C-alpha cells in the first residue's frame, strides 16, 4: 500500500504538506496523488472515529448485527436487494458473506424498540428476505483496528538512554 494511504488511514487530518515532509516528496505531488485516490474511489471519505459509549443523549445508542437470508433475483443476484436494504439510514454497514446466511448488516437505533421495529416492519417484509436473526451488541472492545479505550496509560519511563 502506498505510504500516503498508510498515513491517512491512521490520521485523516494529516495535511498534504505534513505528508510530503514525512515522505520527502513535494506537497504538490502528494496533493495530486490524493486527488487521484479520491477520484478513483480509493479514498472515499475522511471521518472521525468516535467512542459513542461516552456520548450522552446518543441517537444511535443501540447496535445490532443482523443476519439476513435472501432469495437472489434473476440476473442481478444479491446486488439489487442489498441496495434496497443498505439504503435505509439505520443500516450502517452491509456485507455479502459466505456461509449459512447471505447479508450481514450492522443496524443502529435509538433503543432496542427502534431496531426491533426496523426489523419487523421494514426488513422482514421485503419480498426477497426469507429470514433474519438479530444480535444486539452488548459492548464494543475494538472497532476497525481501534481499541476503544479512553486513554492508554503510558507504561514507559519518561527518560532513558
Amino acid at each position, binding site marked *: 500500500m502506498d*505510504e500516503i494511504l*498508510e*498515513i491517512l488511514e491512521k*490520521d485523516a487530518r*494529516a495535511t498534504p504538506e*505534513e505528508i510530503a*515532509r*514525512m*515522505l*520527502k516528496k513535494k506537497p504538490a505531488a502528494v496533493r495530486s496523488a490524493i486527488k487521484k485516490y479520491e477520484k478513483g474511489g480509493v479514498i472515499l471519505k475522511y471521518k472521525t472515529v468516535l467512542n459513542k459509549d461516552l456520548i450522552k443523549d446518543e441517537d444511535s445508542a443501540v447496535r445490532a448485527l443482523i443476519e439476513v437470508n435472501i432469495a437472489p433475483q434473476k440476473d442481478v443476484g444479491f446486488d439489487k436487494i442489498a441496495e434496497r436494504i443498505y439504503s435505509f439510514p439505520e443500516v450502517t454497514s452491509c456485507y455479502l458473506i459466505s456461509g449459512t446466511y447471505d447479508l450481514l448488516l450492522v443496524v443502529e437505533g435509538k433503543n432496542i424498540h427502534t431496531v426491533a421495529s426496523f426489523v419487523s416492519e421494514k426488513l422482514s417484509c421485503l419480498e426477497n428476505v426469507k429470514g433474519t436473526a438479530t444480535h444486539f451488541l452488548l459492548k464494543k472492545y475494538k472497532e476497525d483496528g481501534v481499541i476503544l479505550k479512553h486513554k492508554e496509560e503510558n*507504561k*514507559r*519511563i*519518561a*527518560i*532513558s*538512554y
Partner: protein
Amino acid sequence: MKNIVSKKVEQMQPSGIRAFFDLVLGMKEVISLGVGEPDFVTPWQIREAGIYSLEQGFTSYTSNKGLYKLRLSISRYLKNKHGLEYSPEDEILITVGVSEGVDLVLRSIINPGDKILIPQPSYVSYGPVTELAGGLPIYIDTERQGFKLTPGTLEKHIDKKTKAIILNYPINPTGISYTKEELSRINKVLLKHKILCISDEIYADLTYDFEHTPFAALTGAKDNTLYLDGFSKSYAMTGWRVGFACGPKDLIAGMTKIHQYTIMCVPITSQMAACEALVSGRKSVEEMKREYRRRRELMVEGLNSLGLSCIKPQGAFYVFPSIKKTGLNSLDFAQKLLRKQKVAVVPGRAFGRGFDDYIRISYASSMDNLKEALKRIGAFLKRK
C-alpha cells in the same frame, strides 16, 4: 557503615545528569523525547507466545547458552538475511540484552591495563563497564567527521595496549550509520593491528537509507568480530531483556563462563517470546520502521527549520542537533526546556565529554507528540 562501596565503584563517573532525570520523572504531562526505547508495545503474537509458555508451565532454567531453539532460529535468520554463518552449538550466546553482552565480552578479553577504543559520542555504558573490567577506555572524538570514525583517526589511537574497539551503528545517540565501504576501511585497520571489533548493532533493523551491513559480514572480519544484537529495539521488546552475542568459539566460551556464574540464563519466558519474534515479528518490524522513517523526516526538517541544525541520521530513532547557537550548555538547555515547555530531551554531555553543545532527541514518540514538541521547542527558542 563507612566505605562500604569499593574505591573502583566510588570513582566510576557518576552520571552527571541523574538529577535532571529525576526532575523529568517527577513532572507530569511532559512530552518526553528523552526515551531510548520504542513507543510501540511488543507485537501481540510475541506477547501471546510469552503468555502461552507460562500457561504451559515453562518456568525453569534453560541451558546457560540459551534455548537451543532460539539459538538455531537466530543462526538461520543471520544466514538468510546476511549470509552470516554462526553455529548454534558454540558460536551463539543468548544474553540479557546487548548490555550484558558488552559486559561479558569486556570481562572476557581485558587484562589489566588493556585499552578499549570507544568512538564518541557513544552509548553511556561502554566506558564505565570497560573500567569495571580493569580496562582503560580510550575515547575517540568523532564530532569533526560528522560523528563517524575514520580509518585515519582510528589508526592514530592504536598502540600496543589496544585490545578492542566498541563500534556501535546505527549510533545511539546520533542515529548516524556506516555504509559497507566505510566499514571495510575500518575493518582493514583493525585486521592489520589485530584488534577485536565489538560490534553493537542493536539498531540494525532500523536503518533507513541503505542496507545495514553487519561488521562480521565484511571480508575477513568474522573471526575478528564479536557481533552483538538483540530483540529490544526492532521488535519493541526492551523490557523482555533478550540479546545475543555471536563470535569465535573461544570468545563465546569465555563469555559463557562468566554468564553461567552471574546470570545462569535469560528468563525462559523472554526466550520463548523471542523465538516467536523471529517467526512472526518481521511484518511488524517493517511497519514500525516505516513509521520511524516518516517521523525522522518530520523531525530533521522541523529542527533544522527552527535553527537547531542536525545531520540527517540514517538509522535508530534519534537526532542529535547542535544547540550551540543558543549559548546554553546541554544540561541548562534541557532543564530550561523542561521547566518552560515541558519537553524532555537528553543533554549531550551524557554521551561523552565535549558534546555539551548537543542534545539527543528521540523520535520514538507518536506523530502528534512530535508535532506538539516541535511547536514547544520553537516557542522556547523564541522566548529563551
